[in-house]
């Protein structure tokens, strides 16, 4: 049973339950009311409504699971960084589970804080920026399947969103708009420079990222996550396309904006970058979204290069997927705490002069592999 069937079952059961009421009301009430309620029942039982509600429920479940993972990611982030930096990390809140509850406590604290909007800020942009940022990041999560049976699909056949990987990458690249909007509307020089840097950075790193993904699509012959993962049954793609894998990881770090490439929010020179003027839960949303994007990045790298949910069947597929994503994220963190921040011009040089040719080279390798008939 896959997620669609599970959700369809739930929705069907619910609709039946409620429809009993509608039809009984239609029987009891006079004709003009009765027809209305019967019509409502008919609409509720119709195929289009059922599948719509099923997909809605599916995406809610997927995003909830992803958000729980994001909490784990935040915990790993704080714990691993603490241990690498030689201190304990979260410790007291949720002592028995390693301080896991600390993130929830911080979230509650951020909710209780006052939201301050600068007087000269552009109110609409200032309000919209976090929404776009969070919304686009949640969009990525909704299309990433954890296994063949756990993903957003439109019918019971298990066919997931067509071009799901493309959709995820597209949603990934909405964020610069939000960042630029936040930087511009805050009416502050630091945020402005941060937003500009972010736009430049995201644009220059988007291209090698998508070229690397394109070579994967070329080998797999599909934009669909299930097909991509199925194509890696014999050999995971990071072996033939190791260059592409490394370039993809570097670009992901830049997209997620963690330390070697966290120039938009470089706290040493631009106080907090483009989030300087945001306080309270709006800042909390930005902070959480960074973790969401890290999760999405790890999941993308897992699905595209590390064989997705492929693995010995001792443990369920979903867990395999998550383990791989966690390992990718931990390596991110490890790299993050080992190197200093890079400078903006050096970073753009790295992006355009090194990573882009490497990505093109990787695409060529993929094309050779495909025409050679190995895949």
């Amino acid at each position: 049973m896959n997620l669609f069937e599970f959700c369809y079952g739930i929705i069907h059961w619910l609709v039946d339950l409620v429809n009993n009421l509608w039809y009984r009301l239609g029987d009891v009430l006079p004709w003009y009311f009765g027809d209305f309620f019967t019509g409502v029942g008919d609409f509720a039982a119709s195929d289009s409504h059922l599948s719509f509600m099923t997909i809605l429920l599916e995406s809610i479940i997927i995003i909830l699971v992803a958000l729980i993972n994001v909490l784990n990611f935040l915990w790993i982030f704080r714990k691993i960084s603490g241990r690498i930096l030689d201190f304990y990390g979260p410790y007291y809140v949720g002592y028995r589970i390693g301080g896991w509850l600390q993130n929830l406590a911080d979230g509650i604290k951020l909710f209780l804080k006052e939201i301050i909007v600068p007087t000269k800020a552009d109110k609409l942009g200032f309000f919209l920026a976090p929404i776009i940022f969070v919304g686009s990041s949640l969009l990525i999560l909704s299309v990433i399947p954890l296994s063949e049976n756990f993903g957003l699909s439109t019918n019971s056949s298990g066919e997931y969103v067509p071009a799901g990987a493309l959709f995820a990458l597209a949603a990934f690249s909405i964020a610069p708009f939000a960042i630029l909007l936040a930087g511009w509307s805050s009416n502050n020089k630091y945020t402005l420079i941060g937003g500009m840097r972010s736009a430049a950075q995201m644009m220059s790193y988007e291209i090698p990222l998508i070229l690397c993904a394109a070579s994967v699509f070329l080998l797999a012959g599909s934009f669909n996550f299930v097909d991509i993962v199925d194509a890696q049954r014999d050999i995971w793609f990071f072996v033939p396309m190791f260059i592409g894998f490394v370039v993809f990881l570097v670009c992901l770090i830049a997209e997620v904006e963690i330390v070697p490439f966290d120039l938009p929010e470089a706290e040493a020179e631009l106080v907090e970058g483009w989030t300087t003027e945001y306080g309270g839960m709006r800042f909390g949303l930005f902070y959480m979204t960074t973790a969401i994007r890290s999760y999405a990045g790890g999941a993308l790298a897992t699905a595209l290069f590390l064989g997705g949910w492929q693995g010995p069947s001792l443990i369920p597929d979903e867990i395999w997927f998550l383990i791989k994503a966690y390992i990718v994220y931990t390596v991110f963190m490890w790299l993050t705490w080992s190197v200093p921040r890079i400078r903006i011009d050096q970073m753009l040089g790295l992006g355009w002069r090194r990573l882009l040719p490497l990505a093109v080279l990787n695409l060529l390798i993929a094309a050779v592999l495909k025409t050679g008939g190995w895949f």
Partner: protein
Amino acid sequence: MAEMWINMGPQHPMTHGLWNLRVKVDGETIVDAEPEVGYLHRGIEKICEGLTYPQIIPIADRLCYGSSFTWSHLYCLTAEDLMDVEVPERAEYIRVMAIEMQRIASHLMWLAAYAGDLGLSVGFTNAMRDREVFIDLLQGLAGSRLTYNYPRIGGVAHDLPPNFERDALRTVRYMEQRLKEYEDLFDNSKIFMMRNVGIGILRKEDGIDLGVTGPSLRASGASYDLRKDMPYSVYPEIDFNVATHKDGDCYARYRVRMDEMWECCSIIRQALKKMPKGKWRVVAPRNAPASTGLGRVEDPRGEAVMYVVGDGSDKPYRLKIRSPIFVTLSAAPKILVGYKLADVVVIMGGLDMCLGENDR
């Protein structure tokens, strides 16, 4: 983008302390810079005029949070010069040893702040952790963690605590191990080198003209160290080299400080070995004669000078402090212009700012 002024300070992560660096940027490139200081002015020189000679020692400690020992030692040297007090040899060796420990602690704090500026948090915590070892050692020696109040006019406050030599030698051995490990984190890191090599070049002539002293000048190729060139205390009897570097960029400044830490370790070993037994303090006169006293030492940040005028009473008539950082800061606009905004952090971090002594 049009040119615009950006205030980096007085409340800014780049400024270690309270000061304001106004930079004019064209896009990300700096075209002008203008340091503003004075936010931390406490009038220490004036406060000292109202205190008796021994009472000034804890005030002199508070000139710089990074290396308070050097400043109280400098004050004691100055007052001894004024009063013609002969310091016992054991006290001199204890002072030299403690100053070199303080120099390591100060350089490690600089390294921590510098790594933090670069975004390398692990460098920050590692350097702070290793500084803690020396702070603990000095705490066991003097009784306080930051403001030691240990040197006195005519010696030091009390003798070495028991087992101090063993602890000190062990700490020095630990530090030498750590210094090798830092090479992995800093020198062997490509990104660290990218951020440092060729950034913030200070030419030797400019450095001498602007009065820059200390590691910043030695990194430009000038071998100028008061411990060698104008020895005070028992430095003539100790064998050490002056760390210099010819490049004059941020990496050279980093390298000079790291090499100085090696030298400090060797000086501590020698001082512990050569330390004689005997008295550690003599009674200092209460009233100073009506004359002047001058002290010059090599602070971790440069050349520190104190000048005191006595008028026959038990309070100084005037006390003047020459802060090395105040002078070095005047070179900042010269070395900032032409680099990127992100380099401000690296360059100013490389100068090792300490606002306590700067604003006094």
